[in-house]
């Protein structure tokens, strides 16, 4: 009877391990736990050393800066700072801090911010976002090691609850930067208990060690499994917080995330598999969300390579690009054709939109440049392996062949090879994307300044650089935008980068999640989110 016994044993194993299978999303009406698909596993939870979107979503729950972003419109709302004064020349900011507390009960003070900015700017920490604070007097010099004395940097604690910041130039977007995680405070005693002030990989970010001042506290961090945060009793605005817990699930595979959403494991996904977008738009129009995103999908051109060193060739490439066809027939995720590098911005900056689709003009330009389909060399188009990029690249290949007779060879590589080839200038045309860190054209246009890390095209234009310096020193917003407009016009005439479309954020959201309002930066303060039937 041994085999019967084995059979029974196996059946017991199967049935026993089934248990009661209530999808978490169903039980969340009671438990008030929000389950989120959060992309790749976060590298760390230190606001001064991380760079990724998944990390930023978690830090939004754990640490609060001087300001937070309004859940709808993104304009800054008071965070730790209850209000602030700005001097008439726009260069001096005084922040008045409220009675806010760390999760261990300590008060959040102005000195915490001075300490944190000092830490973030320390060259030895190796933060990848120090430029977020470069508008502060001497911050750049300190970060680049030109001065050692942090007291020369323009941030001072006047008293425990008053923070004074001096800027080297008026920066109307400065308050908005303070919602970004790199400018948020860390708890000094905790940092120094678990390592040096400037040691990367400090153990303070582990559950049990973590001290934050946000609406939630870190409960658990199981690598590749879940990060669990729990409502903080010490948060100053705890009454507003309606969720008991948030579980951030690292899911880097869109298909698996889709399975998890459909089986009620998560409330909100981080993306939707490309092939499902159209189906879901028809079947679940109330669950799929497509909203504009503050980012541009573009092709980066290496202007050191012939024939791309010729501006006319670059213009011809852009003119023979039917962007509407790409967004409507290929990308199909509601993307908006981009005729400027900076995305359309309700914040009153209207970028120049001189780009157009005109294959006839493109042909003429190519002729003027002295090229015919016969003497044009084959050009390589590089992209990282992904179905979406591939389809767009194939469409481009076809358009350029039809309209200009150019032969394009497509090369796809894995992510790291793709990045390294661009870093070292070993490419001709490469697919690229850029998401603004804050809602201001500066967050895009600065990238193309001579020698910037993400310029990567070899392009350098003195007039462009000067216009951006002028913009930085402008006292009025309109004057500033005017300089930026001129700069962007140069960029769109020179075309070291060819914009293709403005990104959209596409994700699935369960109808029980309330307060998750679409906005350009896809930023959602969790204290405004609730789960309701």
């Amino acid at each position, binding site marked *: 009877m041994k*085999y019967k016994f084995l059979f029974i044993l196996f059946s017991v194993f199967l049935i026993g*391990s089934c248990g009661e299978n209530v999808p978490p999303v169903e039980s969340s009406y009671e438990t008030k736990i929000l389950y989120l698909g959060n992309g790749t596993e976060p590298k760390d939870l230190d606001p001064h050393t991380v*760079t990724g979107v998944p990390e930023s979503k978690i830090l939004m729950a754990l640490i609060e800066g001087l300001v937070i972003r309004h859940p709808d419109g993104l304009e800054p709302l008071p965070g730790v700072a209850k209000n602030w004064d700005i001097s008439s020349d726009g260069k001096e900011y005084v922040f008045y801090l409220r009675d806010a507390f760390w999760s261990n009960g300590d008060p959040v003070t102005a000195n915490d911010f001075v300490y944190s900015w000092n830490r973030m700017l320390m060259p030895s920490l*190796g933060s990848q976002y120090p430029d977020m604070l470069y508008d502060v007097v001497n911050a750049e010099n300190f970060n680049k090691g030109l001065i050692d004395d942090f007291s020369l940097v323009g941030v001072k604690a006047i008293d425990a609850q008053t923070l004074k910041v001096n800027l080297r130039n008026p920066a109307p977007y400065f308050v908005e930067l303070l919602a970004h995680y790199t400018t948020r405070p860390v708890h000094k005693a905790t940092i120094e208990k678990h390592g040096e002030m400037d040691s990367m*990989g400090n153990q303070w970010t582990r559950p049990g060690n973590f001290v934050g001042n946000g609406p939630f506290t870190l409960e658990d961090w199981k690598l590749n499994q879940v990060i669990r945060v729990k409502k903080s009793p010490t948060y100053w605005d705890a009454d507003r917080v309606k969720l008991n817990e948030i579980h951030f699930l690292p899911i880097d595979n869109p298909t698996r995330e889709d399975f998890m959403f459909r089986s009620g494991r998560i409330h909100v996904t981080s993306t939707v598999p490309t092939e499902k977008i159209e189906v879901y738009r028809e079947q679940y129009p109330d669950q799929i969300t497509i909203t504009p995103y503050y980012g541009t999908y573009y092709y980066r051109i290496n202007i050191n390579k012939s024939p791309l060193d010729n501006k006319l060739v670059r213009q011809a490439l852009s003119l023979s690009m039917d962007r509407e066809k790409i967004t409507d027939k290929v990308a199909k995720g509601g993307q908006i054709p981009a005729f400027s590098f900076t995305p359309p911005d309700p914040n009153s900056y209207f970028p120049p939109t001189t780009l157009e689709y005109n294959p006839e003009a493109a042909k003429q330009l190519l002729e003027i440049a002295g090229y015919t389909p016969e003497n044009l060399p084959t050009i390589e188009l590089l992209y990282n392996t992904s179905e979406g990029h591939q389809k767009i690249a194939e469409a481009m290949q076809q358009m350029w062949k039809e309209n200009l007779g150019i032969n394009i060879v497509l090369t796809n590589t894995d992510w790291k090879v793709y990045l390294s080839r661009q870093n070292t200038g070993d490419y001709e045309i490469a697919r690229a994307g850029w998401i603004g860190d804050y809602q201001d054209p500066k967050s895009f246009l600065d990238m193309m300044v001579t020698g910037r890390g993400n310029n990567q095209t070899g392009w350098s234009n003195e007039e462009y650089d000067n216009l951006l310096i002028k913009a930085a020193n402008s006292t009025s917003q309109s004057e500033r935008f005017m300089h930026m407009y001129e700069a962007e016009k140069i960029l769109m005439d020179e075309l070291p980068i060819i914009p293709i479309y403005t990104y959209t954020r596409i994700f699935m959201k369960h109808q029980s999640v309330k307060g998750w309002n679409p906005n350009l930066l896809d930023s959602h303060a969790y204290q405004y989110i609730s789960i309701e039937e």
Partner: protein
Amino acid sequence: MLNLILRRIGIAIPVLLTVITLTFLMVHSAPGGPFDEEKAVSAEVLAKLNERYNLDQPLSVQYFDYLSGVLVGDFGPSFRYPGRSVTELISIGLPITFELALYSIIFALCVGIFAGVLGALRPNTALDYIPMSTAMIGICVPSIILGPTLILVFGIWLELVPVSGWGYMPGDKILPTLTLGTAYAAYCARLTRGGMLEILNQDFIRTARAKGLSETRVVVVHALRGGLTPVIAFLGPAMAGLLAGSFVVETIFGIPGLGRFYVEAAFNRDYTMILGSSIFFSVLIVSFNLLSDLVAAALNPKLRD
């Protein structure tokens, strides 16, 4: 026996050294580095990172530094997760991968032996053909197809079991176990059937039957003991195969095991993690093969010298 063990360990050392050396050379010659990021890292920060992780040294220095670290059990820090060592990551992933492999082998044995015995008792009948053809399909369908299919049917349509995770929700271990174990269950079934058929035709079985023993007793006590020899010999390679198969299954189901860390490390050029997990997988596979050789030797005296 001791001789055999010593000899095998003697062979294992150069094997592991070769694995380390080849992996080391391959990861360092792969294009793209651990610190290539979408937001370009400034030259100063890159220099600092390289210094921190010892990457500014010549490759030969790095190699010997690494080897001397491994000798004292230090696999270095992970490049992907600041503040975490490779040892920590392996200690998170390994128990989970082991658990998955263990459940899968139990599943494979239970189902495989049951089906194999059934087939052998009624050869060339429906009871034989149906399980054996199913087994053939089981061997042929790769887990990358089987996994998502099981998810669709049992997770999404029937809503019986969770579709992803490991120990996060009740029942989430079922589908990965089935996905990984099915092919091995099929192998077990075919091996059991073959072994049993051979044994059931032998004289001592006829004697047992002639003595009037019940059929169950004949099968379970007399036949199964010998009939399972091929299955036992298969266990070592099967365990090694299961560990390797976990790469795919862990990725499909989002299981935080060593296989998933390994795949992720390769994409992220997490040099030390790739090396550390390669070494671990090599040690495991070498050990399981050794174990299965020992079992085979114990069963068959001819193999002992």
